[in-house]
């Protein structure tokens, strides 16, 4: 399995084998990896189930494909809503989590203990439970400086999803800071940098590289978790799919095609992120 061959027609296969050997050598065994082939399988499941459903349907009914295409604009709007929730929750959670992560290494024991507690609490709470908490505990509108701001359901859901993101980002940041060799702190101190300067100019810039892959992983997980918002009543893609299915008369043969369709969308969105993460991990691993 050297990846060398005399026959030109075997070259692609030889290269694939060499690539697999290299990867296996890295981890010591065959590693399951998400590839475009899995996306193709998803599409195959979708087509087959749609075909089977179509075969079972009567003569006068619409074809599955036309039903799916008919509802695609609406479902796509719902999907964009999911993505919007994921962006906002990630942005808010990252900002708060970065602060929390830096506070976890504070020299003040109270700050350190408090931020550790908050991180552990939100990290070990089920995301759905946090969502429910936020839906029922947050008011439906707030008054700030005499201005009344309504809080629609999706904002409360975004906040609820931002909380576990905050906790995970806090751990990512803390882990990255603690992975910087202590020699960096020592030499910075010897040069009379104060703690704030050391953190902002020396430690944190070195952390950014290390934090990127786990942070992107977290984003992919968050994107898929946005469908939890359907459980608390937000009108995103899962809720809309349910409504579409009941609008089509509750036909059970439509279930698999539609949910595979949604699965495919999520796959098409998250797959490039996963590939980019793998590439970034490899890129940074070689440098350090």
């Amino acid at each position: 399995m050297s990846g060398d061959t005399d026959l030109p027609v075997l070259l692609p296969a030889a290269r694939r084998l060499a690539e697999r050997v290299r990867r296996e050598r890295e981890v010591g065994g065959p590693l399951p990896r998400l590839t475009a082939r899995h996306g193709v399988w998803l599409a195959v499941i979708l087509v087959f189930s749609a075909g089977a459903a179509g075969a079972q349907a009567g003569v006068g009914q619409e074809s599955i494909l036309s039903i799916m295409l008919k509802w695609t604009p609406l479902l796509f709007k719902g999907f964009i809503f999911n993505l919007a929730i994921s962006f906002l929750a990630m942005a808010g959670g990252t900002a708060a989590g970065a602060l929390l992560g830096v506070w976890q290494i504070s020299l003040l024991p109270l700050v350190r203990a408090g931020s550790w507690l908050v991180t552990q609490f939100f990290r070990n709470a089920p995301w759905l439970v946090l969502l429910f908490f936020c839906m029922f505990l947050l008011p439906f509108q707030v008054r700030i400086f005499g201005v009344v701001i309504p809080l629609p359901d999706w904002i409360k859901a975004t906040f609820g999803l931002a909380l576990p993101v905050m906790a995970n980002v806090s751990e990512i940041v803390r882990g990255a800071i603690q992975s910087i060799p202590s020699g960096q702190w020592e030499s910075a101190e010897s040069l009379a940098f104060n703690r704030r300067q050391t953190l902002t100019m020396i430690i944190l810039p070195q952390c950014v590289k290390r934090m990127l892959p786990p942070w992107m992983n977290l984003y992919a997980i968050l994107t898929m978790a946005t469908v939890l918002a359907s459980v608390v009543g937000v009108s995103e893609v899962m809720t809309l799919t349910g409504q579409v299915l009941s609008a089509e008369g509750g036909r059970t043969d439509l279930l698999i095609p539609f949910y595979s369709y949604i699965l495919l969308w999520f796959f098409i969105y998250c797959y490039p992120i996963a590939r980019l993460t793998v590439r970034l991990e490899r890129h940074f691993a070689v440098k350090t």
Partner: protein
Amino acid sequence: MTATQTWTADQPIVHIADVHKSFGVVEVLKGVSLDVMKGEVICIIGPSGSGKSTLLRCINALVPINKGSILVEGQEVHDPKLNKLELRKKVGMVFQQYNLFPHKTALQNVMMAPVTVLKQNKAEVEARAYALLKKVRLEGKEPSYPGELSGGQQQRVAIARSLAMNPDVMLFDEVTAALDPETVKEVLVTIRDLAEEGMTCLLVTHEMGFARELADHMYFTDRGVIVEHGPPKEFFAHPRDPRTQQFLGQIL
């Protein structure tokens, strides 16, 4: 522990008196006393674990002490009211692992501290940084990142970086221990130039030849105490204590 005494050049620039340091239950320094006059080169040798590196780290307050006193230019180092940053502007340190900032070029590494900490004019600092890198024989390497430099080159950038702060005392913690023999010479030549210009240097080193040639005073530590000390000629030729004799016999 006296706080501040007005310091004059006839007093030791670094005065260490009966310093004790424990890490938990392990006592690393068991009463160490040392005096360094301005312009002197002091070499501290000894087996690993004898407390040499800890002693250096106590001098610039990287490590607190349990008992005793350290005066740098008359300033008590372990005074809780002391501004550690002011002390560290006077005492520079170079480490065994270089500890350069990997995300900055060699020039930026050298410039960062004077610009940020001392708040000096950027153009002046840049000119001085170029001069310092030229002095350590790294002309042309200013835009290189530490990852692109060899060990010896990185160590010389580290020395230039400490010198940029214009310290009065330089501490060298086994700076050549991680280098291969060819590059060791480059670094030692740089340190020798520094010493000949009159910088007060405290070196923890295993380079006996270098120590013999350059040191004004030698100290041998073992298990947290200074066993023996003296001028290098006498120290190497006629060690008095059996532990010193054993150590020198092993390495020479």
